[in-house]
């Protein structure tokens, strides 16, 4: 089944988020680091008077060498956070992410114009922060 995704670039790789879970692409200005938080937490940002946490997607996915510049605000149930990406490429219909991928943060992958696009599991990315910290 095809789905509509927001296509982003993170450290040279292409990922897609389900459009229903993306609230907006924001320019958040200065992000305040939160001492004591896990490494993938960049800090908290001011989104028009709302304080929201910002997660570095590259660190979460174990990538390096990105040039994060944009914040995609995503939500999963009660959880809401900004995801730091290099670039937002497109919003469009994507083929089913049926290729299996060995990552807790990905649902699967699909081919778009010959390039591999991995579908992000937004619930897992946002949900991982609290639980990991709680168990440590």
């Amino acid at each position: 089944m095809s789905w509509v995704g927001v296509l982003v670039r993170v450290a040279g790789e292409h990922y897609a988020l389900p459009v229903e879970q993306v609230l907006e692409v924001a320019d958040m200005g200065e992000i305040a680091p939160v001492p004591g938080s896990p490494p993938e937490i960049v800090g908290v940002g001011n989104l028009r008077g709302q304080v929201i946490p910002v997660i570095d997607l590259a660190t979460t996915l174990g990538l390096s060498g990105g040039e994060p510049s944009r914040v995609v605000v995503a939500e999963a149930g009660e959880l809401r956070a900004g995801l730091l990406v290099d670039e937002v490429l497109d919003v469009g219909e994507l083929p089913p992410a049926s290729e299996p991928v060995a990552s807790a943060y990905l649902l699967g992958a699909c081919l778009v114009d010959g390039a591999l696009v991995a579908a992000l599991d937004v619930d897992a990315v946002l949900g991982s922060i609290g639980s990991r910290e709680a168990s440590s």
Partner: protein
Amino acid sequence: MSASDEEIHELVRQEAGDCLQRMEANLLALESGEGGSDEVDAILRDAHSIKGSAAMIGWQESATLANAIEDRMERARETGSVPRELVDPLLRGVDALQRAVNGEEGVAAPLVAELAGVGADADAEAAGTSGASGEGRGQPAARDPAPSEHAPTIRIDATKVDRMIDAVGETVLYQRRLEHAVESTGQAGRQVSDELEMGERLLGDLQDSVVQMRTLPLRMITSPFPRALRDLAAEEGKEAELVISGADTQLDRVILEGISETIVHLLRNSIAHGIEPPEERESAGKPRTGRIALRAHQRGGMVAIEVADDGRGVSAELLARADEAGSLADLLAETGFSTAEALTEVAGRGVGLDAVKRSVEGLGGGLEVTSEPGSGTEVTLLLPLTLALMRVLLFERGGQPFGLPMTSIGRVVAVGETTSLGNRPSIEIDGEVVHLSYVGGQRGAGGELAERPPAIVVESLGRRLALVCDELIGEEEVVIKSLGAVLSEIPGYLGAAILGDGRIALVLDPNHLLKARREAMAVEQPDQKNERPPGQVLVVDDQFSARELQRSILEVAGYKVEVARDGREALRRIGEIPDLDLVLTDVQMPEMDGFELLEAIRGDEAHASLPVVIVTTLGDEASRKRGAEAGADAYIVKNEFDQEALLETIERLAGK
């Protein structure tokens, strides 16, 4: 701020209105045959709630009628069904209760009699009892409120108010940016500055009123509690006193309104189930008078409201059963469960804690109960801190602003020589060795520290530590926002505040800081002896923010500070304050400006030599000249405002 009786009455009236609406809907459901035992329980809870809060504020007529409805429903619950012919009188009872709550007199008695009589054949004895209890407390209805002309209220969806708060906050930011842009051109004439300042003042007022739409101190609802508690105790033949602390804790208005009846429940429970009769207390080696503590404070991202009594506690057998039920709170909240041996007017029928639990959970909070047989019970309401105001001391570390609640701060010291205690760097303050603490836990986090960095002495529960920072920003009242569900497990923060310049200040949890340093040894020393008395400064500024910033800087530096909003008020205050050492004044103010104030001071023989420092946005040559001619001791331009230069100037002029 203290709540007027009318404000409290209005809160009770609103709550009762909600309860009555639900009661009506539930009665109608029962009549149509759709309702069942859930509806009966709900009606009981609502009647019980109204009875509780009405009795607390002395609305006897409403309390009596609510009690009659509760009695009748209670009998219905026992038989397992509500007869059709009962619904109509109950509905009329609900209507009459609404009128009684609105202040109408004489509406209760006929309904109380009727309700006691309906179905009396089926349960003659119970009807007799309830009729008698209705009569028995027939105190004069004179304390019921007169039909009052209270200000009309409107109800607004809370998310709309939140959106408004955010929008106003953003507008304030843009105003500041605009001011900055205009000032940096250096071309701002007096008229433009005046207009900008007026805009800032108006926006400040707007912001204050919007935030007030959302928060109130707990004090708003606590003022009637102590006397009401004594009355309740007297009815039960007990003696009890109420000790309230933390009444200034700010709570979301929605939450505050929702918990007044809940706290009333808990106080009544403490009297009925907790506090023993005086003789029993004496033979148990306790003071005759029971003590109930109502405490409010922030715990992590929540507000905790505790009602603790030093009564008999629950039985050991009950505690054992609590393990099976999950928790003591769960067990006590089971419908129909009551620890009271006899049903009395005061507490009643076990619906109490059930109602409490539902109401707190409905607000997104939780309920905790701890109890020790023989020594007391403590019930804690944990309420979400969706939005709360807090006075914080803002400071900077590593180029990032942080805040600490003012309530936790002892004072600020400069870190000189450090010693090592238990392998940790420490400093000596008044002969006591205090551990140094760093934001993020490490000395290195946030970059190199200055040679003698300031440290904020954080105190709580007899422990203290010194948190090292780069620079103090000042004291400010901020709106604390949650860091969000994603970061909810990260300890150490009460939340975050968005500052005037748009930056985010993380607000540290002092209890967490101190917990992390629990092992820190402190060599107890008696209180420090007083040094020379602090200097007394009068700050004159019509802008709240400027006034408070200067006040906090001076207070942190050890001065006593009084404030005035314009020259005229300042002149009056100067005559009133003994031992005034210095006046710090703005220039542009309504009524009487700073230059006029200065001239008036110099013209008054008694104060002619009083040091006066002008702090103003007017940096032009003509203004400076006018200040010097009028006899200012120093002239500080706000654009170049520098905390240390200000303090040095004041120290020089006010130093004795």
